[in-house]
């Protein structure tokens, strides 16, 4: 992305009908939303057909845009020239350079293609920026500097589209998964009381998400960001008749609002710091060019981090995400696994130079982003261990994986983070939809312990796709998760010989632990769901094609998308041309040269390490096997058991002490499984869960509770008691003094006369002496 060397080439801007008309992609589902809202109930399929058509059309467009983008990248040097020497030399034709010759972000490849129109402007006309479709980002540069001068200059708020690798990637992911979810839902929410509303909101969500993804300005980003939040709110609370659902929806929205404080403040700071501009490229440019002080960048990064934490479920603002599972499962797959929750990660990527500079990622060993990501990834992994609810397992797993992505970005592994976002979308969507399929078969229950078990025989398609998803998530080579996870671990630069942007040892360790944890909890989840004996009371059956086909498609994706970003060494070693390597990086990561503050530290890519891959995979496999062993042993004892009745965790009272002694033999037998697997699963994960539910979640709930209490206090004692009372009291005292003064009026004429003469005499005396 950014390199140390001086860049001598010119900015390259691609052009294509697809880039110029990319606004159609969000417009289609938006139109679909309106149509469904207005006419949905009168349509034969209650609006579902409109939503599906629109989203499929959008997917088609997105696919074409993606291909165009890839083609442009490939023509523009492609894989052969991605090495740094070649890159510097490339000088394509479609160059536009910043007119003022100022150092800034200069792209040699993958420069954002911007199409903006002025949404509205505030300020004096003369200074207002007008951005035509032809003038690119660079054209805005000149004007942007004008605003910086003097006071009260014009403000322009543009609306438009920004097409670059990152947004194209998300366009593809969002439309793809949304299409599948749309199709899947026709079966899954069939006959729902608010089927039409459901589709309307799916469409609206898709539109908002795409709108956000394509945003060229921070303000547009905020708009999209909030809109997806509302859709999430509406869909989590889809069954709002039940209070827990609406509670969860409220919690999601409010927690996100907390993060939005950071978003608003951070964007505001950046707006002014970057010379009064909302334009994302301009802000990035200002950050890279050193126009913004380090302190300002750090503060704004921290503010934005709050937004990321809430939206992408990072500790400690993650608690809404598991609750959000109250929504319909396809929604969880689309919104709370694959797309909306990665908005935070996307935001970091969008403003990466700001974060990169703000947190001083280059050459660092730890920073807030990497730490939060690391903590989240481990914490989420632990929490996933103790869930009974299959969706909650997946939810915590999502939290964990999102932590992974943030960790990646925090250590400077931009491509790795984005790549993980990409692969995760497929296998996690696959898992969620699989869980949906399972619950569809089990009377809409998500309780693994009570209502599942042994389902592999009843629903083989679901089972196998689920297994593929699990393997991909656990990072089993050669599935998708392996490649992206490996790249993140490499990117930390902590493993000898990887040479990342710094030496992020702690995040690296967090990453390794998570690699093991992921495999472990997913194994537990798979075992509880598909192995052992069926414990429920329904008649499980395989779901219909509208459910299984999307599952299969996603599973296929989960298998192969990892190959998009194979390390060069690997590609060469298996005998493919080096052109096969790092395709994802080529396509998504823009290349260019930046002038850094100080100019010493640049953005570098880590070198992959085979040893690390083996270690990480080994850890995962080992963890998975231990858990597997634990459950097979358990199964041998009792086919229907889901947990040792007297596991470590349950032996916490004196009354159980005698029992424990008697069972010692048993414990010796199972020392291995119990202490290692159960130890992790039991006390540690439980402790984490306890902490999560009682402390973290408690904090969130308490925040709500306390603010209500404070509200009551303020209202009762300050507002009614002091402020309002002051007014009433002054009124009363006026009235009281009136009562007192009435006593003057005794009715005695002689007293009246005395008063009159007395007053006359006193006043006369006073005035005589005064003058």
């Amino acid at each position, binding site marked *: 992305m950014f390199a140390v060397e001086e860049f001598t080439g010119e900015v390259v801007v691609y052009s294509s009908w697809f880039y110029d008309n990319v606004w159609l992609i969000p417009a289609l589902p938006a139109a679909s939303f309106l149509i469904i809202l207005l006419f949905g109930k009168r349509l034969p399929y209650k609006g579902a057909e409109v939503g599906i058509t629109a989203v499929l059309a959008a997917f088609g467009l997105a696919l074409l845009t993606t291909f165009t983008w890839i083609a442009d990248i490939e023509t523009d040097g492609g894989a052969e020239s991605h090495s740094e020497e070649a890159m510097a030399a490339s000088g394509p034709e479609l160059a536009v350079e910043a007119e003022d010759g100022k150092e800034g972000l200069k792209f040699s490849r993958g420069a954002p293609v911007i199409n903006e129109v002025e949404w*509205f402007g505030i300020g004096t006309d003369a200074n207002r920026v007008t951005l035509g479709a032809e003038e690119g980002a660079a054209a805005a540069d000149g004007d942007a500097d004008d605003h910086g001068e003097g006071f009260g200059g014009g403000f322009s708020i543009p609306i438009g589209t920004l097409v670059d690798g990152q947004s194209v990637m998300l366009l593809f992911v969002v439309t793809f998964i949304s299409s599948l979810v749309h199709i899947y839902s026709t079966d899954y929410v069939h006959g729902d009381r608010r089927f039409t509303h459901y589709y309307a909101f799916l469409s609206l969500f898709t539109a908002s998400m795409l709108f956000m993804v394509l945003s060229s300005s921070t303000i547009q980003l905020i708009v999209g960001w909030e809109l997806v939040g509302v859709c999430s709110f509406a869909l989590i609370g889809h069954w709002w008749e*039940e209070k827990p659902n609406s509670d969860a929806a409220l919690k999601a929205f409010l927690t996100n609002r907390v993060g939005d404080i950071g978003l608003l403040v951070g964007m*505001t700071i950046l707006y002014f710091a970057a010379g009064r501009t909302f334009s994302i490229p301009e802000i990035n440019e200002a950050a890279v060019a050193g126009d913004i002080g380090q302190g300002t960048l750090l503060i704004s990064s921290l503010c934005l981090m709050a937004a990321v934490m809430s939206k992408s479920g990072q500790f400690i603002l993650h608690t809404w995400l598991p609750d959000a599972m109250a929504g319909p499962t396809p929604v969880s797959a689309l919104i709370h696994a694959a797309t909306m929750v990665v908005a935070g990660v996307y935001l970091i990527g969008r403003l990466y130079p700001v974060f990169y500079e703000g947190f001083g990622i280059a050459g660092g060993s730890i920073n807030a982003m990497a730490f939060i990501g690391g903590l989240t990834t481990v914490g989420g992994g632990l929490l996933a261990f103790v869930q009974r609810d299959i969706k909650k397992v997946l939810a915590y797993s999502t939290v964990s994986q999102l932590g992974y992505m943030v960790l990646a970005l925090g250590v400077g592994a931009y491509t790795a983070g984005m790549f993980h976002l990409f692969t995760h979308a497929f296998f996690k969507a696959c898992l969620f939809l699989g869980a949906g399929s399972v619950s569809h078969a089990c009377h809409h229950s998500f309780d693994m312990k009570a209502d599942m078990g042994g389902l592999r025989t009843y629903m083989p398609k679901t089972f196998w796709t689920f297994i593929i998803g699990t393997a991909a998530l656990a990072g089993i080579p050669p599935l998708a998760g392996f490649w992206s996870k490996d790249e993140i671990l490499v990117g930390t630069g902590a493993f000898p010989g990887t040479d990342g942007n710094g030496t992020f040892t702690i995040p690296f360790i967090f990453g390794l632990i998570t690699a093991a944890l992921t495999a472990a909890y997913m194994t537990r989840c798979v075992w509880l769901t598909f192995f052992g004996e069926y414990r429920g009371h329904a008649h499980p059956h395989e779901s219909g094609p509208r459910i299984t086909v999307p599952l299969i498609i996603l599973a296929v994706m989960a298998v192969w998308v990892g190959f998009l970003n194979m390390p060069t060494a690997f590609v060469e070693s298996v005998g493919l041309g080096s052109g096969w390597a790092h395709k994802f990086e080529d396509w998504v990561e823009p290349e260019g040269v930046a002038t850094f503050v100080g100019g010493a530290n640049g953005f570098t890519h880590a070198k992959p390490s085979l040893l690390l891959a083996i270690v990480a995979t080994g850890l995962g496999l080992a963890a998975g096997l231990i858990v597997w062993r634990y459950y097979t042993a358990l199964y041998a004892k009792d086919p229907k058991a889901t947990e040792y009745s007297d596991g470590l965790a349950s032996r916490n009272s004196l009354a159980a002490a005698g029992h424990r002694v008697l069972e010692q033999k048993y414990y010796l037998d199972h020392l291995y499984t119990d202490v290692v697997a159960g130890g992790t699963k039991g006390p540690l994960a439980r402790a984490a869960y306890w902490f999560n539910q009682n402390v973290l979640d408690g904090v969130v709930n308490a925040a709500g509770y306390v603010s209500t209490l404070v509200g009551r206090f303020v*209202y009762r004692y300050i507002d009614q008691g002091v402020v309002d009372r002051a007014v009433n009291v002054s009124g009363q005292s006026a009235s009281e003094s009136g009562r007192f003064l009435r006593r003057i009026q005794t009715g005695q004429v002689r007293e009246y006369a005395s008063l009159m003469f007395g007053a006359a005499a006193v006043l006369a005396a006073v005035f005589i002496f005064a003058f």
Partner: protein
Amino acid sequence: MQDFLDNWGITVMVFAPLVGVVAMMLLPEREEETHKLIALVASVASAIVGLLLLVNFDYDRSGVMQFARTDTWISVVNADYSIGLDGMSLPLVALTLLVTPLVIIYSWNHIPSPGNAKAFLMLMLVLHTGMLGTFVARDLVLFFVFFEVVLLPMYFMIGVWGGEQRLYAAIKFFLYTLFGSALMLVSFLALYWSTGSQTFSITGLAELVADGDVARNTQLLIFGGMFLGFGIKVPMFPFHTWLPDAHTQAPTQGSVILAAVLLKLGTYGFIRIAIPILPEAAVSWAPWIGLLAVIGIIYGALGCLAQTDMKRLIAFSSVAHMGYVMLGIATLTDFGINAAIFGMVAHGLITGMLFFIAGSVKERYHTLEIARLGGLLVQAPRMGWILGITTMASLGLPGLAGFWGEFPAILAAYQPAPGLSEELFRVYMVIAAIGTVLAAAYLLWLLQRTAFGTPSEEFEDDPHIHDTVFTEWVAWTPMLILIVVLGFVPSLIFDVTNEPASMVGEVIAALG
């Protein structure tokens, strides 16, 4: 036509409702339908003339007073009948022109107890004239007269057609406002005499003050008086306590008008009169105004969290929302003032809408106690949806009108006008941003408790509870459409307010 509009347009628009009042006065009370018709015709006539004005308004010169006219009124004190329309007043005039007819339509089958449509609608029309007049007045005395004219009808509207505590609420409303306006009048007169050349013309005074005709300390004191007058009307913390009572007790129509237009008289006064005339004093006062604004934001939100009554909650939310408007104004930047005007219109539409809904809920459930409500979406799904959209708009969701009043105000606070402390205003900015969370909290809480869930047993099979009716649709649709349209096309307002706001901003900037 153009000639007519230039000379008479505003006058006709402002006084057309009074013609209706006279007509209604002559008719007996029992012909209720005729009264409603006359009221509607009068308000629509006013709106049509207003629409013609809006159409003929030269949007490229929105900083200039258009359709202006000045006639001698009270020569003794050089007070003129001086009116005009510019970009600053235009959105508010348009808002007023929209809201009153809608309220009258809503009244078609919602005349509050104890009835008497004649008196009710007459007051409404008088109110209409007063509000329009305030927004078009270019002379302080004229402004003052119109500003006060609205008191009377509103007092009666609350007092006669209000709720349980209506007597208390009405008098509180009246006394508070009167207190402010009395001091405001003193300020106006002080301004009149202290410039040395007696004039009440707003622009004239601004020029005189700019020429340095008024001592700095005098300016500060005069601004203080105006601050009280306008601040009470806004209302700013700690002068807000009349508002929850007035809003809660007023009949639905009264609450709507109060929220939609009346509160704006105060904020409009700040940007039309106080700040342009006394920019130096404004700079000195701005930190305090900002402080009270952000206190209002948090305080109003906390107040909302404590409410158990839907209408009172909405009322308290006005304190918070007007806090954003005042914060925008306190920044004294063109950006902030633009945001403030947008905020005024947005708040007018949104909170007006919320009060409409509250009124309709009350009509159906005969209670507004949040704890007893629930399941509106089940029993009256359309209304529940409307409530949902409006709450979302109120909490400042982008894509709906509320956002453009709120976010730009926060943005503007980051960099206030030169001469104001950046650090201080940045603290305000953060507090205001925190306010958005609280706003979301109480509004969603309201939504959850009223719209979500299932109806309580008490109302489960109540036949009175029905979905939105025709007059409600007619009255609400334009507002809802505007809420959405303004959310996506904020330039509708910003383009108009931009020039006048920039002019104010430049005056302030020139000082620093």
